[in-house]
């Protein structure tokens, strides 16, 4: 009955997304930019005749920019308020079972992580940071400033 987690790497760091929020994992090939949109919106892509809004997780967490020029990127598809998003991550690793409820992390994190953190969960591979999908979609400091 424990929550399932999708383990991904963002900016080289292994983190967990609540698997229930993730619809599928896809490989994006084409990316149509959205001029003037917040910087963490990498563009639009189509998946099975649906439009996905592609979010660059690195950018959203103020951890730099993912280079999307080299073509195929791995992404996790999530839905929020009827809209579908693809979260670009470095890599999708595995699905694990959470062995604890998320607990607050008392150590200081980077500002971006701090904003998106739901706390720390224990897994069989050690503690992982549980990331709030909605916070990633909302974007980072740049989006707020814009």
């Amino acid at each position: 009955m424990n929550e399932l987690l999708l383990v991904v790497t963002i900016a080289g760091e292994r983190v967990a997304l609540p698997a229930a929020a993730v619809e599928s994992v896809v490989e994006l090939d084409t990316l149509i930019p959205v001029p003037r949109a917040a910087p963490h919106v990498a563009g639009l892509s189509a998946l099975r005749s649906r439009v996905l809004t592609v979010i660059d997780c690195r950018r959203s967490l103020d951890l730099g920019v993912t280079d999307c020029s080299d073509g195929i990127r791995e992404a996790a598809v999530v839905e929020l308020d009827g809209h579908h998003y693809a979260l670009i991550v470095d890599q999708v690793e595995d699905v694990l079972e959470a062995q604890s409820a998320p607990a607050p992390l008392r150590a200081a994190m980077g500002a971006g992580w701090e904003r998106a953190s739901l706390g720390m969960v224990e897994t069989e591979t050690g503690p992982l940071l549980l990331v709030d999908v909605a916070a990633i979609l909302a974007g980072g400091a740049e989006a707020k400033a814009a």
Partner: protein
Amino acid sequence: MDDLIADFVAECRDMLEALGGEIVAWEAQPDDRARLDNIFRFVHTVKGNCGFFDFPRLEALSHAAEDALADVRAGRRQPDAALVSAVLAIIDRIAEMIAAIEAGEEMPAGDDSALIDALAPGAEGHATPLAATVADGQGKATSAPRTIRLSVELLDRVMSTVSDMVLARNELARRLRESETEVIVDGAFERLSAIIAEMRDAITRTRMQRIENLFVALPRMVRDLSGELGKQVLVDIEGGDVELDREMIEMIRDPLTHIIRNAVDHGIELPAERLKAGKREIGLLCVSARQSGNQILIDIQDDGRGIDGKKLVEKAIANGVIDKAAAAQLSPREQLALIFEAGLSTAKAVTAISGRGVGMDVVRSNVERIGGIVEVDSRPGEGTRMTLRVPLTLTIIPALTVSIGNQHFAIPRSAIEEIVRANGESVTLERLGGAGVATIRGRRVPEVSLAEILGLESHVGDADRRLIVLRPAGGDVYALSVDRIHDHEELVVKPAAPAVMATGLYAGTTLADDGSPILLFDPAGLAEVGGVKLEIQERAARIAEGPANSGPRVVPVLLFHGLDGARRALRLAVVDRIEEVPLSAVRTTAGQLRVQVGDAILPLAGADGIELSGDKLRVFRLSDGVHEIGYAFREVVDFATIDNDVIHAERPGEVSGVSLINGEPAELIDAHWLFANHVGSSAQPAQPLVCRLPADDPWMQNMLRPIVEAAGYVVVGEDSETPADLVIASQGDAVGEAASAIFLRSEPEPAGKKDESIYRYDRAGLLMALKSAGRGK
């Protein structure tokens, strides 16, 4: 139990909605048995159900009303105004309670005995109708006419699935095109495709509702309003069967209500005033709906006092909406349009009905939010007409695809006024303080570059761009320059994610046929981000033009090179537009050069004695308001004005004189001479031409005759004695004596080289033959 109550509430709501109109009709005609029965049935149903559900107050109310109505039905009592009001008051109270039950609230506390007492014969009519509550109650009711009940979410889900299906089909179609498939597969796909299209149509229709749902509540609302104001208003409703997207109906409910309230409150006068003005005591309010293309037009017309444009202007100046100089320049139409400006109300006093400060500006913004337009037309003393134009549906939008660099975007077609080339004949682009101004046929239009708005790189030079003249809902035009224009497409538009919408530029996203996502622009948003001021532009543009036009001796002309290379000028006002025609459209018929433009054949000037070469010819279409002629030219040089003296020609002719324009001499074309010499000869002859048609040929009589008559002929049968100027016959038939004859064949292709017959559906050919036959006389 909860299910039963929900059913009861739904049933009551349906009946209440249907009753809205009945009650007013009953009041106007209390002895109308059918209406009485309907109302009786309602209270009876409510009473029956209340006993079952234990709603004692509802039961007492409905019981009392039922008793009184039963007396009327049995003829023991005559219905009078007091009784009608009392019954109405009870129905209102029932509606209130049902709304409370539906919302799951506690039954509101209160005493109904006053209402019940009012029913008694001879009771004082102190039961006032509860107008506001009723309007609200009905505003919430969104159910469809009595058929089956489906949840709205389910319908939406089906609709969105079907939209996805269409997109999936498009993608499949693309993949099929790319790969080699067997004919059988293609056939099967075609079938699937057709079925999906049909299904989409059907599903779209399920979302459609008759606008009647919106209209039923109006008679009651107007009745209550006019009663409150001491006015008499008759409502005439038309076009209730027009269908509109369910969502749209909800969106226009408030604006429509507001407009009607305004019409009753401000428009229609008190009975005494109306009599004094020589009008009928009873004001007339017409509400009509009709479909026009993919738009629905809703007219709200009253015969009241109209809107005084001058008062509006005074008010607008007083409120600082516009300044005096600008106000003086307003056309009557623009004066009226001021009522949509924020903070303007001409009502002398704020009444409870309207004029609460939320004015027509709110109406306009609400209508515009759904891609609609609201227009006003009014004559003081005669009445006002408001027209709402709203799109049929929100989901499928005809759009134009354009591109910057290699990225495609879509623009809703409804906002596009025209498309011109940036280096076109009648277009000039200028930069004023960094801002772009395009002059399109003498009209100054702010220009913004899409590439700049979007911050994209464009590799197309300014001169090679296309300008799309856009008119965002309610705003004034502006020109958007894009790299390339691609295609018209019907797009299934979906709302974009909030992060995308936050840019303010886009109205949604969609998938193109090739499966790639496309962003759909919001024309108003583009203008805003591009820094174009939509509101004040029209006035400013006109003011800028005004003095230029009224200045002495300034005549705007179009400077061009004729086919013979001569530098010439034509007064701008006579040039209707510029057309490009294939050279094959130019023919010498009946001793005169003529050009076929679309369906029309125009005399052609400017090409006499000149060898035509190339495969296209550019032609000015000149018009004097009645006749049109074509004038061939090589290229347009510029717009200019004649501000030097004109040296007049010695003899009247095509050229009336010479003047220095932009420092070089140019011949001025005498438009009057052109028309006199090219049209004058083809004007209607005094003696009408006679054409003989076989009387027994139904095709000739039904299809051909109107065309022949329109060309100025009097049509006679074979047995007529009148000598005919022209005979039209089927190919191979014998013809009698006539000045000329036209033979028609039923095959598009001629039988041989000598075959001079005309294909019977070659309309242009026919018209040309008719014209030249007439000339032969």
